[in-house]
């Protein structure tokens, strides 16, 4: 099979899987009730987080173990913005705040809240990225430091009770209101789904653009990309910030869908879970991230009933098996799977390469 033919086969398969997933997600609310629809809407917000991980890890080879930080920051800013737009929230009153601090005033305007929910995590990621992605810091350390940032972020949010509600988190968040009034469960579902489809298209566009090819070169061999003349650290910081912004949007949608946020949304656990979804699904082809996120979250819902705590054990086992036997993830393996067809066998193997 020739290279072009193979690429076309992979493209067709990927399009096929995407179409299946899209059809399933689009028709799901018809069969499922309001509750299940709302649950899947949450997962669709997490799909955007998984896409942001794939953009960073699968495309560029930067493995962040703290992708929940921009996600959680976006979620918290969206939550606070939503709450303060209706006066001083209850949890702030509990801690004795009677007048909204000046720093929170801009958040009372919903549009500004949305802008800040993306801008603040992006700015923070720019700072971290500038320091960590300079090329002299080894990839392992980037993973570990991003993990440490996630750790400290959780501790901080737990501690800043006055503004974040501490370990109780923030509740009473309304659904998004793009047209003036809050969406219904089904309206929100399709809103989040549209966002996820847009996020996929955006990542796909980046991947197939010139930028995407430079990112691929960085992943394949960073030094060589430097020698060719690309300013690799600028590219890395850029994609790090873009991916953070995407994660922040995911967090925002997540907060407004679940109606509550807790410190766990910024933590190491969610960060590593997102990486696990992408690793299990298969990195670098977007479809793997989507499928991995949907499948593992779906299985968790399904298994929680009879496995309980043992579900986590299953996640560990699945991850270990994937790393052992399917380094490209499930979707990666499906895309590359090539049965020897009778016609090809007759021609003598037919493995032209």
């Amino acid at each position, binding site marked *: 099979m020739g290279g072009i033919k193979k690429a076309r086969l992979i493209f067709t398969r990927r399009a096929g899987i995407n179409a299946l997933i899209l059809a399933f997600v689009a028709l799901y609310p018809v069969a499922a009730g309001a509750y299940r629809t709302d649950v899947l809407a949450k997962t669709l917000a997490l799909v955007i987080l998984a896409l942001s991980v794939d953009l960073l890890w699968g495309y560029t080879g930067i493995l962040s173990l703290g992708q929940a930080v921009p996600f959680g920051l976006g979620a918290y800013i969206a939550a606070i913005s939503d709450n303060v737009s209706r006066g001083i929230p209850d949890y702030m009153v509990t801690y004795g705040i009677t007048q909204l601090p000046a720093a929170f005033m801009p958040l009372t305007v919903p549009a500004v809240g949305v802008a800040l929910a993306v801008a603040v995590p992006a700015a923070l990621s720019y700072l*971290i990225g500038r320091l*960590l992605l*300079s090329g002299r810091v080894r990839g*392992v350390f980037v993973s570990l*430091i991003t993990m440490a940032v996630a750790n*400290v972020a959780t501790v901080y949010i737990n*501690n800043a009770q006055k503004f974040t509600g501490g370990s109780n988190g923030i509740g009473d968040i309304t659904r998004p209101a793009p047209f003036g009034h809050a969406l219904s469960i089904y309206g929100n579902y399709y809103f989040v789904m549209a966002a996820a489809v847009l996020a996929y298209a955006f990542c796909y566009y980046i991947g197939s653009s010139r930028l995407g090819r430079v990112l691929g070169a960085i992943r394949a061999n960073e030094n060589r990309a430097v020698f060719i003349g690309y300013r690799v650290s600028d590219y890395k910081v850029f994609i790090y910030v873009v991916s953070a912004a995407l994660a922040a949007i995911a967090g925002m949608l997540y907060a407004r869908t679940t109606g509550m946020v807790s410190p766990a949304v910024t933590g190491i656990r969610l960060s590593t879970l997102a990486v696990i979804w992408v690793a299990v699904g298969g990195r670098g082809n977007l479809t793997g991230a989507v499928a991995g996120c949907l499948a593992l979250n779906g299985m968790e819902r399904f298994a929680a009933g009879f496995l309980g705590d043992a579900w986590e054990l299953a996640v560990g086992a699945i991850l270990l098996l994937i790393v052992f036997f399917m380094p490209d993830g499930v979707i990666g393996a499906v895309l590359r799977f090539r049965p020897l067809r009778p016609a090809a066998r007759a021609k003598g193997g037919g493995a032209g390469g």
Partner: protein
Amino acid sequence: MGILPIQLMNGLFAASTLLLCSLGMVIIFGNMNVVNLAHGEFIMVGAYTAWFISAVARLPFVAAVAGAALVAGLFGAVVERVVIKRFYQRFEETLLATYAISIIMTQIFRLGFSSMKKIVELPVRGGFEIGSMTFPKYNLVIVAAAATAVGFVCLLFYKTPFGRRVRAIRQNRNMAMCLGINASATDTLSFGLGCALAGLAGAVTAPVKIVFPAMGASYLMDSFSTVVVGGVDSFIGTAASSALISESTSVLGGFMSEVYAQIIVLVGIILILRFRPSGLFAKERR
């Protein structure tokens, strides 16, 4: 007396704990270049073993510490043979595989021993006084254990044939193998040794910490920061950096909230990595 001496003393005790917990990682991360995200879980295994030997089997604490090191070490050797071995020099796979191991270990202990906290009795009770301040006597045990462990590991690495083999493999694996060193056996031994040290740390610190299945996570970040700042493969550097990190967290924590102290220390670590990527105390290597 002011608050500063108390902070400094507490910092010293914290530093000993940190050093004890990081030593295993210096071997596994620094010398073998393996990122072991299950490091904290090996500490957890050590702590549980210590709990089992001292609280359930009612044996003396020394037996608990020795048993913990043995169990964690053997377990580590098995993990190296079955999992780690396949992924040398591939850090992403190592990260994922060791993270999977850490989830599996945490969950097995949760299912086996429940999430309830286990209590390990202090083997040495009472306090001692310096000036007008009183500190628990057990803190001295931790300091002594940390000092002994560092001394032991330094001797082992720089004065024995085993240590020479480990260093030879690190410098040039192929050449070392050509000269007849059994690299894969040495890898298993040194990984096991790193895990045994983690287990020992878990046992020694068990009486002053909380023993529960998910305890590993907090140790992991602390150990990594320490090792990274120290210059991953240096025992003395790690000793210095654990002192630096604990003292600064402790002293800063005396003047501001603990959280801000943690943030400042993390920013410091990021800056150190940015400008000295191989750690503060690392020798220049080519």
